[in-house]
């Protein structure tokens, strides 16, 4: 089955489930969140630089402490240095859309603050672009390819309640996108570790 269809079906199921659960929860039944952060990108044998990124999504209270969540994030123009060898110079750039679906567990520190952990699956749609030059001796050029697949994410953070509806959050989240270009001669994993801050609005 097409992975996109699986993801959409999962989201619809999650929404139905959470609407039912929300009626029984002490938490506000729905939340929307938006985070801005910085990604450290890790690929074996390569050195991509970090990049600013954003993550946004919805959460549905499932019980007093547990929320289900669906979100969107990505990798935004993470580049390698321009490297050189006998053949020429080359630089690679990664861009990705990540669709997140998972659980969110939170626990109180005080009346106005709490911690949380997150865990779930992600579906990625990623593109990598190669820019090659040949020291001016032959014409330079670009090539790109893309792939999609499933991975996972895990993270945690803390939050401060600013008002009954508004919360400030800070978090660290790790995402793994395994076997990118798995049909190629050298598939590789793309991991990111992101530190972000953001707000959560409950309604």
């Amino acid at each position, binding site marked *: 089955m097409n992975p996109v269809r699986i993801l959409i079906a999962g989201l619809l199921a999650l929404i139905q489930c959470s609407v039912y659960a929300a009626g029984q929860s002490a938490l506000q039944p729905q939340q929307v969140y938006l985070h801005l952060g910085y990604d450290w990108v890790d*690929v*074996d*044998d*390569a050195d991509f630089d970090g990049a600013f990124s954003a993550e946004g999504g919805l959460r549905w209270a499932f019980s007093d402490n547990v929320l289900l969540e669906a979100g969107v994030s990505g990798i935004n123009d993470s580049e390698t240095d321009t490297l*050189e*060898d*006998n*053949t*020429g110079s*080359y630089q*690679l750039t990664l861009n990705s859309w990540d669709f997140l679906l998972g659980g969110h567990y939170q626990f109180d520190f005080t009346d106005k603050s709490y911690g949380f952990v997150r865990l779930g699956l992600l579906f990625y749609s990623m593109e*990598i672009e*190669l*820019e*090659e030059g*040949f*020291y001016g*001796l*032959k*014409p*330079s*050029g*670009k*090539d*790109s*390819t893309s792939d999609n697949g499933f991975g996972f994410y895990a993270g945690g953070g803390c939050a401060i309640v600013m008002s009954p509806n508004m919360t400030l959050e800070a978090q660290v989240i790790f995402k793994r996108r395994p076997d990118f*270009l798995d049909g*190629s*001669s*050298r*598939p*590789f994993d793309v991991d990111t570790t992101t530190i972000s801050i953001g707000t959560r609005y409950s309604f």
Partner: protein
Amino acid sequence: MIRAKKLMLLPVLLSLCSCYTGSSDSLRDPVSQEGVSATVHADLPYQSNVVSVAASFYKDGEKQPLVGGDIITAASDNDTAILRSLENLSGNYLAQLEVSDSSAGVDFTIVHDPEAARQDRWYPLDELMVDPGPGELVGYGTGINFPEPLVLDAPLSNEIYTSRTQDIILNWTTSPSTEQIRLTTVQTCYSGDRSLQWGTSSILGTTDTGTHTVSVASLIPSTNFVNAVSNFIDQLSLIIVSAIVDAYSFGLVSTKDISIESFQLEHCAISLTVFREISNELGAGISGGYAIGSTSDTVTVNFRP
């Protein structure tokens, strides 16, 4: 282990330079100012099945770096290697390859193989590739055969010399196949945690006498600079010596002149390599340069003043 030892030398001041001396070279024709030329050398050390190869190609007298998927391959009877340049765009290419039957020689060819040229890169080449197509040198090539093996009988390995006035007497087996004998030396001197390395290369002649005497003083002078010759890496018979290839590999090469008087040497290792060289016909379309096949033997002695 060898790599680890070299890395330990990183903090050490290491300068590599060379002096080119001796009689004129009867085998190495000059590069042509028109058309395609090649300077190619393959050396088979005594009791080794690994051939060291070095090559450069020229167009209209200018050395040509190979880029964009063009590579030089060297093929023996049982191995193929891609020649790599230790410095991008230098146009000087090196490799080592195994050989089981040296009489089969080594063939050098310039080919356009975009994936092989990039095989050290980490990303999938079958998915990501900018191929600008073959350059104009693709298709040129030449072959090399080797002379009879050269075996050094003297001096003995690790022999110690204590004075610059002493002579080092080299003896080796002679052969009628010899067209030229060359002596290449690499001196590595130590002073505490510092080291200094340089090389010399000289042609001993076209007659294979089987013996040569060289003074310690001529290899390790007590005064003056040990000069960094600007065309150091043009001396293929010098860079083909593994000690120098290693130094290049680790980026330890400095071309600045160093005054030997300022270096309070404690001891030196002198590596002496005698080459038996023969010339080979250049491949089709190549109008200048040379293709040298050699056999060699190396002995290392010590100088402890």
